[in-house]
């Protein structure tokens, strides 16, 4: 109930959103290992008690909320991109561009990749990558309904795109500029679209 009270004011961002944003700023500045609950509370301008009330469980609960928040943000961008796309090629290009932009313009993630890779990379390989791909397919698959009929083909397509994105954003290629939509379109036309249309034919 206390949480509801904190969330009540409609104008400014809800308290938990402010705390999540503050946590991202702290991580971008000091990294994950050095960011404490006190740092985040101070940065957000809330008391320690309030933070614990918003995130029972403290630091772990807060970090989970941060990840959930960022995944939702990506989900919204991908949803919006799919809503305005006309062709399957449009979606593929827009998704690559949106996700690459989010990663490149994400100071907290960039700090972690550069200075604390052990906090991020284990999530992106082997068993945990399998789990991530499954989640991506579950979130992104339904957005492709207009272009790909079968749910299994949609899940396959999203899993594939997620792999491509991870590879080309974590290890940039001189052949593909992920910040340039024309470059992404050439790449998608060459390697992705033929397989999508073939698998969904």
């Amino acid at each position, binding site marked *: 109930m206390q949480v509801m009270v904190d969330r009540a004011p409609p104008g400014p961002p809800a308290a938990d959103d402010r705390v999540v944003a503050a946590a991202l700023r702290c991580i971008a500045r000091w990294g994950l290992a050095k960011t404490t609950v006190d740092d985040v509370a101070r940065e957000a301008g809330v008391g320690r008690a309030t933070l614990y009330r918003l995130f029972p469980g403290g630091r772990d609960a807060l970090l989970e909320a941060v990840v959930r928040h960022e995944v939702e943000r990506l989900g919204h961008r991908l949803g919006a991109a799919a809503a305005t796309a006309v062709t399957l090629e449009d979606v593929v290009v827009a998704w690559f561009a949106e996700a690459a932009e989010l990663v490149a313009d994400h100071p907290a993630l960039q700090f972690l990749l550069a200075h604390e*890779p*052990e*906090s991020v*990379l*284990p999530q*992106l*390989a*082997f*068993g*945990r*990558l*399998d789990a991530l*791909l*499954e989640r991506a*397919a579950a979130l992104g698959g339904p957005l492709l309904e207009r272009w790909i009929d079968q749910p299994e083909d949609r*899940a*396959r397509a999203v*899993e*594939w795109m997620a*792999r*491509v994105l*991870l*590879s*080309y954003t*974590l*290890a940039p*290629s001189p*052949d593909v500029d992920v910040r340039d939509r024309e470059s992404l379109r050439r790449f998608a*036309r*060459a*390697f*992705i*679209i*033929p*397989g999508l249309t*073939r*698998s969904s034919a």
Partner: protein
Amino acid sequence: MERSARTRLLEAAYACIGRYGLGKTTVEDVAREAGVSRATVYRHFPGGRDELLREVIAWETTRFFLRLAEAVAGIRDFADLLEEALLYAHEAVESHAVLQQVLATEPERLLPTLTVESARICGHVAEFLTPYLEAAPRRCPGVEPGQAADYVARMFLSWIGAPGRWDLTDRAQVRALVRTEFLAGILLLDDETKRGLPSH
């Protein structure tokens, strides 16, 4: 040919990692395992423990891919080559006792180094694949072999690390995967070659 002192140290370190894990292996353990002094270890690996562990990961990664290259040697057709390589590599990852043990208990110690390694290996895999693509008789128009090889190498590494929704022990599935996600835009594959083989 006699193995170099450096190789013996890498082998010793690898044995220690299998026994104690990455976090608990010390320079002293490796020296004892190799039957040399700590000073000898430091002479070969001046960076000490961190350098030694990094070098072991690089060394075993290279050995892994050399074994893979050997397993697919002699296959001429590009699609067949990828099919065999995926089947082999998936099985080799699954049955790699030291890798699986480290992944289960201390992935955060392995994966940053392995990711750096995988960027290096990706370049080697692409180099390995390029001549096959240059020689491939039914390349799609406009496909540049070097670029296509880089793409295929990336996908290959992604799938052997995490098979996702694919069963990479099933030959028919691997065949379908190679002919769509890997090669649909790269080679013109007719119906005959697209048809999956029964699994074995």
